[in-house]
């Protein structure tokens, strides 16, 4: 009837070959590209933050006065100016500052004259272990829960659970932490409330940290799963006899997870931020508490070293997530033209 009717070509040829010759760029090469991009971003960030700190400290007042503290007299101020090169022009100071930065020389702590970077490295392992535990716990709980909630969002039980998750999302970590201490340390006396005293001490800080971020991940995963379950490929799989579990776990979840890549990568950043408060609440001997103490005492060499290490750690984690997803998500592997 239409023009195609008279077009009786054999089916075997000619077949359109638009994309047949396209080759995907090897994952290794793309990994290298991602790394390069991330390292550039990191350098930009470090440069920005250190410059910000440098000028903030100088614009808001006399850094020598800050360094000398409230007890410093005129003589001491002069001494400090000389010692830190604060009597030189601003631009020279900035140059010296950057030069030392490149060598990772942050100076020594004003409080106890220890090497600032050394102090930070001392605290690093516990803090980052805490963050990694919370990150893992968060994903282990959030992904199945989110998948369950999103698979049939109209069921009553799931609606109730979703409401609970929504309320949980509104409870900041420091409130969870205080409630946990109140319950498990003060009332029940089961868990130690301060410091790192063995395995039991990890439970409450890790829970506090994970609990604050988990609801958000649950909600995003659940929304993504709900959306994926309405996709055409789910209908195709159903039409081929796939059962509910296959549809959810083998078809919908992977798509839902890949849709949450950015959020999962950003979790590390959120968790590091949250760990600062968590460490203060639980008097945890970590980097976060060191940062807060140094900020309170205006111990800038330590502050700067801590901020640097945090930035590097977060970037490392985000880049790692990027690369992992590059291996998981076929759509990210770009075509060569």
């Amino acid at each position, binding site marked *: 009837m239409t023009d195609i009717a008279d077009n009786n070509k054999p089916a075997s040829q000619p077949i359109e070959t638009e994309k047949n010759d396209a080759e995907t760029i090897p994952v290794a090469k793309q990994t290298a590209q991602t790394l390069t991009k991330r390292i550039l971003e990191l350098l930009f960030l470090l440069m920005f*933050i250190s410059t910000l700190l440098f000028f903030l400290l100088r614009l808001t007042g006399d850094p020598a006065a800050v360094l000398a503290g409230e007890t410093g007299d005129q003589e001491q101020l002069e001494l400090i100016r000389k010692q830190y090169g604060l009597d030189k022009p601003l631009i020279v100071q900035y140059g010296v500052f950057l030069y030392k930065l490149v060598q990772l020389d942050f100076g020594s702590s004003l409080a106890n004259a220890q090497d600032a970077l050394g102090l930070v490295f001392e605290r690093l392992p516990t803090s980052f272990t805490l963050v990694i535990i919370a990150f893992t716990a968060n994903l282990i709980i959030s992904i199945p829960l989110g998948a369950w909630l999103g698979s049939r969002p109209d069921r009553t039980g799931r609606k109730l659970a979703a409401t609970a998750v929504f309320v949980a*999302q509104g409870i900041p970590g420091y409130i969870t932490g205080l409630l946990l201490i109140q319950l498990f340390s003060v009332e029940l006396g089961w868990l130690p409330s301060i410091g790192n005293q063995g395995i039991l001490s990890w439970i409450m800080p890790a829970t506090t940290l994970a609990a604050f971020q988990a609801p958000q991940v649950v909600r995003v995963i659940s929304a993504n799963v709900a959306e994926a379950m309405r996709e055409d490929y789910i209908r195709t799989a159903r039409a081929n006899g796939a059962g509910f579990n296959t549809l959810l776990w083998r078809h919908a979840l992977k798509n839902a997870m890949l849709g949450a890549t950015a959020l999962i990568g950003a979790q590390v950043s959120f968790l590091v931020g949250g760990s600062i408060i968590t460490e203060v609440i639980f008097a945890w001997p970590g980097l976060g508490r060191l940062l807060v103490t140094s900020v309170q005492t205006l111990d800038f060499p330590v502050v700067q070293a801590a901020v640097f290490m945090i*930035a590097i750690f977060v970037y490392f984690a985000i880049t790692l997530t990027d690369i992992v997803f590059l291996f998981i998500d076929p759509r990210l592997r770009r075509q060569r033209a």
Partner: protein
Amino acid sequence: MTTATATDKPAPAFRFNKIGTGSLQLDLGLLLFAIVVIALLAQWVVLDESALDGNLRTRLKPMGYISPDGVRHIFGTDQLGRDLLFRVLGGLPWSLGISGVAVVCVAVIGTFIGLIGAWYTGVVRTIVLLGIAAMIAMPFLVLALVVVAVVGRGFWPLSLTMGFIAWTAVSRVIYAESRGLLTREYVLAARLFGVSKWSILIFHVLPGLRPTILVMAAFFFAVLLIIESALSFLGLGAPLNAPSWGNMLSDSRQYLTIAPWMMFAPAGAIVLAVISLNLIGDGFAELSRKRARAVEV
């Protein structure tokens, strides 16, 4: 296949129907938020009586305590014998005010930078994107902590610092959405007619971004409220004597063993405010989804 979609009734666009706004979440959120804000008025009605007498134990009154002169302390009193309910109400302008000012900054700066990144190509866009990507990775609390330590405590330093740091996430979303809007036919038509850059951005692109900005502003209000309280909790936010909710939580932590009730009023206030703001954000998101669907049909 359109049979299924045909059963969807086209939803009214942002129209206020007889009761509420058409979104259950938004209704609930606005209601809760109204309660929180109306409570603000109560602070002028009741005088803050602090009774610096006796020892700590006698000043700390548990929840529901009725004093000899008949004053009922629903949430108990703090270490200075001040009624916690009224202190929480007094903290409203601090906690909501600081995060409110910050969220306005976030919305304005985030939208502006996002639009700039979307409009320009080349070096400007690269710098904007690089900056956004880099800043998002830096834990917000860490940055705020460091800057506030230098610029000092107080309402304006705190709110402006948060406003000038937190815009990155907003600008990323605005950037992505503006790029989509800039490819629409009506924008192309406007460009062909020689409409100026700012006219296009303000009159053609910005209106399309309004739902997104509303949704993000509501969620960021909640996030900033949490951050403000966190900073105050760490002793680096509102001035130490200000009744900011974070400060009150910080106080309560010191008396956790002898006066566990001290945390309930400020914690409840924070949670209530955050939940209501999240509800408002969800409600806006739902309404804009409904409207998008109504336009499609």
